[in-house]
């Protein structure tokens, strides 16, 4: 079984400041890792993903994440946030080749950007 822990339920940050949203996962096998974002009154959309290869992955809107296998982490970062980044962010994990493409999500982190 796999699980995802997002350590912070809410993160307030001032505009133009850097931010890190933390994600740890638990799995006995190799995994694919994802960050999804949900803007107010919209569906979830993929921000970035790690499948294999380089552990630093870049996504949309200036976000990036680093896969750390020894720490079982996949933290999301942005060097300078904008008001428009206010949203809820979900980390998710999937076991490759499991046949179902089922994603296991964390509980989410609400990012609030303060002007």
């Amino acid at each position, binding site marked *: 079984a796999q699980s995802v822990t997002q350590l912070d339920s809410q993160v307030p940050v001032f505009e133009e400041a850097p931010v890190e949203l933390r994600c740890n996962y638990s799995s006995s096998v190799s995994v*694919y890792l994802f960050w999804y974002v949900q803007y107010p009154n919209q569906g*979830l959309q*993929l921000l970035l993903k790690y499948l294999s290869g380089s552990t630093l992955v870049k996504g949309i809107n200036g976000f990036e994440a680093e896969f750390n296998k020894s720490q079982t982490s996949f933290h999301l970062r942005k060097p300078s946030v904008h008001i428009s980044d206010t949203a809820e962010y979900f980390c*998710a994990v999937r076991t490759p080749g499991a046949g*179902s*493409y*089922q994603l296991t*999500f964390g509980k989410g982190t609400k990012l609030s950007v303060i002007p």
Partner: protein
Amino acid sequence: GAGVSQTPSNKVTEKGKYVELRCDPISGHTALYWYRQSLGQGPEFLIYFQGTGAADDSGLPNDRFFAVRPEGSVSTLKIQRTERGDSAVYLCASSSTGADTGELFFGEGSRLTVL
């Protein structure tokens, strides 16, 4: 439409009633998923369709929940004898064949409230 469409966007019903939630996936996407998101939680997997068949229904909580996709496109999630604990946002997502990369395209969800 271009995205995943879900109807109704909001549904209020009484305990014990029957409810149907509809999902219209992105044209050409053969994979379709239902997730449930309770307040303060991340999305939880319910069922996955590949074409017309349910390839994985391991997330359905009990036999009051059932989903169909008779023509391999539109799907309906059916909940019998609703209970207050069924109150949640029901999310539908679709993806293209062979998308073993976790990129799901989500609808905005159907918010179900059971009184």
